[in-house]
């Protein structure tokens, strides 16, 4: 067997001392180092910061919204430093998984699509874009549901992850919970998050100015009350100010992606009666691609981050006792390893299914009691008419 495919076997054996790979990648705004970026906003109604804001305190990063205080997720420390969440673990996973739809990586995973009809048009949904992965409803109500149910069953009853690896290997990488079936819960092997350090939140204001002064020019009558004023603003017939809302953050420290590949979770993947190494090599290869492949830089409006050319990514190999050692891998080597491992494992076949709208509708129409009945025994939802 080639050195390429066996080079990481030491990590994949049950008694390995290596517990995880950790990557730090420095990013910068596409506009330049000190540009303003827009982190995600969250509702802060039931939080300490939101409570203080409601009492009139100026809390940096918290703003007044129509449904209560909202803002950025910023931790502040006594020494004046701060950390701001730029892209969460869940969000990063949803961005990374579709990498395997790119031309250079699509051969590494089976292509599983479910066709459904939306407004009379056929639409294909790729499993890589399904939020709950192999356990998503798009699969559960499809013509290929039983294959996935059997794969989850193999994990639950025999500790055999190979069937699921043949169908939906990225579910092993990013984690999955078959919450409506076998209850099999697989921890994520790859985890990534982006944070910015030492941030200063800003405000921004904007105003819509209509092209014509409809009232001033006598085209429309002046509004008689606030309701009419609001209606005119809503329809774009009036100035609409949006003052002092969230205005992004200026980052005075680093912007960093921190990603891990948990080898302990990977080593918990097994096969029934077979050597688990091919499976583990395959999953490792996918994980390395997930961490090394160039990622989409556009996170959201006002937040496009590119790798910092002045600072190379750092890899660390983490042992069980917490000791960290330098390590490195290029995206090219990761791809080569992943291809070799995928070929040896034999990637699962592409699969196409159709969404069973009738069945989903029938289940939707069931009462709570009927749904309870159909779930007993842990089977996928059944049509009462069958």
């Amino acid at each position: 067997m080639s050195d390429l495919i066996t080079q990481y076997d030491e990590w994949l054996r049950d008694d390995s001392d290596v517990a995880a790979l950790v990557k730090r990648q420095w990013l910068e705004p596409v506009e330049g180092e000190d540009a303003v970026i827009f982190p995600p906003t969250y509702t802060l109604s039931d939080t300490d910061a939101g409570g203080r804001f409601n009492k009139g305190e100026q809390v940096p990063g918290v703003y007044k919204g129509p449904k209560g205080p909202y803002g950025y997720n910023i931790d502040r420390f006594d020494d004046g430093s701060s950390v701001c969440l730029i892209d969460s673990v869940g969000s990063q996973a949803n961005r990374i998984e579709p990498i395997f739809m790119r031309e250079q990586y699509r051969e590494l995973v089976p292509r599983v699509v479910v066709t459904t009809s939306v407004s009379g048009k056929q639409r294909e949904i790729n499993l890589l874009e399904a939020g709950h992965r192999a356990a998503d409803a798009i699969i559960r109500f499809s013509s290929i549901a039983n294959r996935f149910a059997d794969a989850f069953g193999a994990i639950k009853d025999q500790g055999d992850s190979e069937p699921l690896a043949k169908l939906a290997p990225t579910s092993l990488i990013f984690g999955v919970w078959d919450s409506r079936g076998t209850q099999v819960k697989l921890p994520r092997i790859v985890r990534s998050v982006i944070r910015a350090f030492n941030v200063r939140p800003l405000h921004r204001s904007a105003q819509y100015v209509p092209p014509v002064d409809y009232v001033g020019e006598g085209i429309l009558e002046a509004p008689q009350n606030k309701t009419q004023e609001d209606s005119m603003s809503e329809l774009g017939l009036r100035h609409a100010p949006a003052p002092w809302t969230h205005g992004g953050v200026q980052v005075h420290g680093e912007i960093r992606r921190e990603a891990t590949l948990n080898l302990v979770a990977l080593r918990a993947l097994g096969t029934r009666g077979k050597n688990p190494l091919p499976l583990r090599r395959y999953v490792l290869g996918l994980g390395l691609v997930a961490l090394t492949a160039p990622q989409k830089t556009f996170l959201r409006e006002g937040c496009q981050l590119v790798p910092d050319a002045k600072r190379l990514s750092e890899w660390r190999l983490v042992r069980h006792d917490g000791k960290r050692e330098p390590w490195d891998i290029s995206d090219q080597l990761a791809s080569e390893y992943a291809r070799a491992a995928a070929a040896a494992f034999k990637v699962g076949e592409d699969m196409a299914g159709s969404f069973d709208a009738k069945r989903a509708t029938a289940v939707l129409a069931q009462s709570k009691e009927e749904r309870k009945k159909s779930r007993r025994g842990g089977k996928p939802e059944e049509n009462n008419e069958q």
Partner: protein
Amino acid sequence: MIRYLCISVTFLDPLFHGKGDADEPEWPPSPMRLFQALVAGSRRGCCNGDWSKAKAEAYQWLEGREPPMIIAPPARRSAAYTLFVPNNDADEKFDRQDRLAPKMVRTHRIVGGASDAKSGQTLHYVWTVPETEGSEARTYAELLCREARRLTTLGWGVDQAVAHGRVLNDAEVEALSGQRWTAWDAWFAGRQILRAPKTGSLDDLTRAYEAFVNRLSMTQPPKAREPRVFDRAVYLPQGVLPPRPRAAFELPDGIAFRQEDAARIASMLRSLACAASKADTHEFPGGAEVYVAGHVGKRQDNVPRFSYLPLPSIGQEHADGMIRRLTIAEPVGGDGSHARWAQQRLLNAVIRDQEGNERGVLRELWRQSSRAMIRRYVEQARIWSSVTPVILSGFDDSKQTKAEKLVISAVEHAGLPVSAIAELTLRKAPFWPGSQHPRQYALPSYLKGLPSWHLRIVFREPIPGPLAIGAGRHAGLGLFATRET
């Protein structure tokens, strides 16, 4: 020789999402959480095929042990926020937007980070394993050390971690860096309470797992999926004291005693408690003669016993320093059962002086201001000033330096770590309005002639009251209060 089983867990990210009871963010992660994570690692995926009777016995050995010491890096609460996550129940609501469920995220952020040489992101859970337990204990410990390497997360699913185990000696445990948290066998309101495994926890986790896997059958309520068999322990950082459980009473309107008679009032209260204990079957540590009456030899000054602490009125603009409220406090770390006894048995009892005259009735706290006033004596604070003077156990020859040494000794006798003191001020002038010069206070015969001072102590960390030090600390003298509430 004592050995220690040490399971060390290194977080791969500085955020910890775990929540304790009452849905509050938890730090450090509880021993029960670790136990669950270890069992999960041992039985996850293909590892379940290796599950054996030997492993089960090792976990059962571990669950039967006293809660471990936890050595953890410092962590602070992070900003909370709400995520909206779509439920995977399109069979109930097809549209994704209709399935969004809020999920409040409240985390702790480990201070220091992975590159921090002192503590990093590693916690250590340390169980004592006396050598007398024999080779079987060693076998279990070594097996658990190997199983620890299968741990993948500690906390939520995003709290990825790696772990390993070792058997260590005293010096090796001493060398572990981080803040030490120890378990107290008592209940204290407002303190960090962590779950810990106990006998039966492993079997119960198996039961909970089966209930979870079969949850869609809806034959059991959701609570069946939760662990039920565990202990709870108060964990306090080293250097932080637990509060002193106490009983509190208030005298009727119109009855008050001069602060200078604090020791006499304490004596009346003690007599009442002694009489009640003789007419009762409640068991006291060391017996009622020791615990309630305080009949201990000089060499047994630190034997656990009640402290009788009349509380002069202080803190408000017109506070006159008179005694209207009385407490009976257990020693530091008491479990509260004896204070509860005192509260129940002595409520509405009549206190009498040495001649047998009625001097007052012990009521519940009835004045509006009482709770706020008592807080000055019992709440956590760093700065404490004596209300009644501290009686030193030796002679200071009127020298401040010698007095300071005797004060340090008094602090140690009171069960306080001297290392916890940041600053000490001695003087004869009182710190509180209503307090008097030390020579004004009536002393029992065994304390007469001993030097006495007013003190102000600044601690490095807040400590709870009631705080009393010195030779009269069980008799109303050397009582402190704080202005920090």
